[in-house]
């Protein structure tokens, strides 16, 4: 097959794009190209037609106003997203969309914003923000390097797997139970920015591998020597960047 297509949906890029989450889209598309696939990015904003084919979904964080603007549309698409999640479509949601993929978000003022319930998690608004460089440990992906910045504290229901564990209190999902993020099937939610995927290529490759396998029955990179070298160079730089990031103050 000549450069098979992978359809990537960037969820609400207009309103849910703070904290450099664009870097995740860029990382997935560039790596897909270097593996010999043809990435097709669908920027899906509220009111848009839903793409015919979806292999991978990426969603970012937003401001309160942005979350308010997309909430209605997200509910219109909730069944579609839940179905895709149940079927095993790989997804990555950061911060705001991680929260909205949970059960609900309750603000400091006691207002309750419903989520679409893909993750068995709920979030409580808080006065204090958890901000800073963060390293979490994951069985699946090794150490995950990033930067958290959120005031919502997220709690996992019994049996829900976190993405990773953190060493210190005052960091991670809620500052208390040493968990960070959540995963159900092939759907990952996390507070990690940085952007996440450039410095954590193992997660990027996991999403890509899953998407390709689901669509074509296998992940079969068809790379030129040049593409292979380019990818190795990126990963060598990422390794250096990870090392520095992990050594910086919170």
């Amino acid at each position: 097959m000549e450069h098979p297509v992978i359809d990537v949906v960037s969820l609400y890029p207009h309103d849910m794009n703070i904290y450099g989450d664009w870097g995740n889209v860029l990382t997935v598309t560039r790596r897909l190209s270097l593996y010999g696939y043809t990435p097709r990015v669908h920027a899906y904003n509220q009111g848009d037609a839903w793409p015919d084919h979806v292999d991978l979904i990426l969603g970012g964080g937003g401001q309160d106003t942005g979350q308010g603007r997309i909430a209605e549309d997200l509910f219109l698409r909730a069944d579609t997203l839940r179905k895709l999640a149940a079927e095993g479509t790989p997804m990555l949601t950061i911060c705001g969309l991680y929260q909205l993929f949970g059960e609900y978000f309750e603000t400091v003022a006691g207002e309750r914003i419903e989520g679409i319930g893909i993750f068995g998690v709920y979030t409580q608004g808080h006065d204090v923000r958890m901000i800073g460089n963060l390293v979490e440990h994951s069985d699946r992906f090794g150490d995950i390097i990033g930067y958290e910045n959120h005031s919502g504290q997220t709690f996992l229901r019994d049996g829900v797997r976190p993405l990773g564990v953190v060493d210190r209190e005052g960091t991670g999902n809620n500052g208390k139970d040493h968990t960070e993020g959540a995963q159900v099937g092939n759907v990952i939610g996390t507070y990690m920015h940085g952007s996440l995927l450039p410095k954590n290529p193992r997660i990027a490759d996991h999403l890509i591998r899953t998407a390709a396998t689901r669509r074509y029955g296998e992940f079969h990179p068809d790379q030129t020597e040049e593409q292979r070298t380019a990818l190795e160079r990126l990963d060598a730089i990422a390794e250096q960047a990870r090392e520095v990031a992990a050594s910086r103050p919170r």
Partner: protein
Amino acid sequence: MAMNDESRPERDDGARVVVDDGAVTARAEAPAATHAAKPAGPNAAGGSVQVPRGHWWWPSALTPWAGRTAQWASRLAGHGGSALPGRVVEVLDPGFLARTLGTLPYGVVLVSGTNGKTTTTRMVALMLEQLGLKVFTNPTGSNFTRGVVSALMGAIDGRRPLDADIAVLELDEAYAVHFVRQIRPRYSLLLNVMRDQLDRFGEIDNTARLLGHVAQATTGTVVLNREDARIARLSEQVPDGTAVRYFGLVNSLRSYFPSDDDMHGTDIRRTAMSGTDVDDGAVDGADDGAASSAMAAFGAGGPGASLSGAPSSLIPGESPRLDVGREAFASTAQPADVTLRRVGDHEAEFLIDGATVGGRVRLEGIYNLFNAAAALTVVRSVLADAGRSVDGGRLMEALAEVTPAFGRGEVIEVQGAPVELLLVKNPMGFRLSLGSFPAPGHDTMIAICDEYADGRDMSWLWDVDFTSLRETGVAMVSGTRAWDMALRLGYDEVKVARTDTDLEESVERFVTANPGVPKHIYCTYTAMLRLRARLARLADVADAGVGR
């Protein structure tokens, strides 16, 4: 790598509560604390500012002396900073600021916003000086309350009042709130809100709320950016009796000065299409020529190439609403006092009172032409209140005299070749700089640090499009986060010749390589302080006025 707290600029943390005797208004607004709850309310509109009293045991005539002693002591200690003297004075004499600035016949002009504060403040101050006023202003970079206090130390003597007609002060958004609790500005100029160091201010809507407090506290005229929906909306908070003036752009130029909402999603496509997608009409009588001349000023790729962040494979056209980011603007459109009409290479045309006036500018970067519209609006307000009428031609003469501020296109001559220092603090500023300083014919270095003043989070680099550097590549990447920057460039397929976290050694290697070739150095705040210090060993570097 030697990079410790001492290399931070004198941005104090603002969290220390000023020692006061009951005057709540003297409390420092901690930037970090602004994430938490809504900032405490400002003084009620129309009410007077509570001026904190001094201490009974402290003779206020000694304040300048105490401040200067602290200044001297801190210079001696090798910091050369302005935070310590400011802190000393704030503790000993909390009423100092209000007392000293409160006597100025034309009051205080406060300039705030995410991008362009320093250069715009400089423009307002220098133009007013050109037009005959005696101006006090805070030097570059000291845009926090204690920096202002320290600057005042150098300007006053004992009990004599400050020898100036007007003060023009640049204040960082959070410190502006702290400042207006001590003294209410007669004029405020609110430039824009864009994503900056999110770890300091939280979300940009929160930053807009901070500026709302400034608007509420202003007694004379609030000058607002009509093209930034979050800023334009602040008009609702301006108290009765205070005037509102806008500065703006003709329609055909709007796509060259994107607001924060234009950074992503559907609006990327709109920006990328600009030049052909000129929606002429209505408000300002747009000029077709403007688009092409703006294009020329941006260099071959046009702004679409340098401002968009979309991969080429992004599929357009699924959204019925290409214009999302401008919706809010359309509903708040107001006639502007000064409108930027046309831009070119070191020249600009403005619409003022229905007439077109144009002139040369010495400032670098197309975005400074829009800042000039902002500065002109403030200057016109001040002059009108002073009962002076100055024609457009004279204003243009004054504008033509303004030179770039430190680190804002500052040029240092090293071994016969110009080295241009370009301060980058946030994605939009970085994008605009890349668009304004075409890389061909230059060697490029990028230095990214992650100290508190730079912002610890590297996410912002991913909101900048570096593809305009593909053609030339980047000769040197340095700073504490050099590898993050190299990774960012790698994903944009920009070749990097060398990556080295040792900033001092890197900058020396960079400026001495390729003699005679002009150079661009993009750098974050603390990176700039450090590399200026190193360049001072090799070349003539002006005193930055900010230490080190």
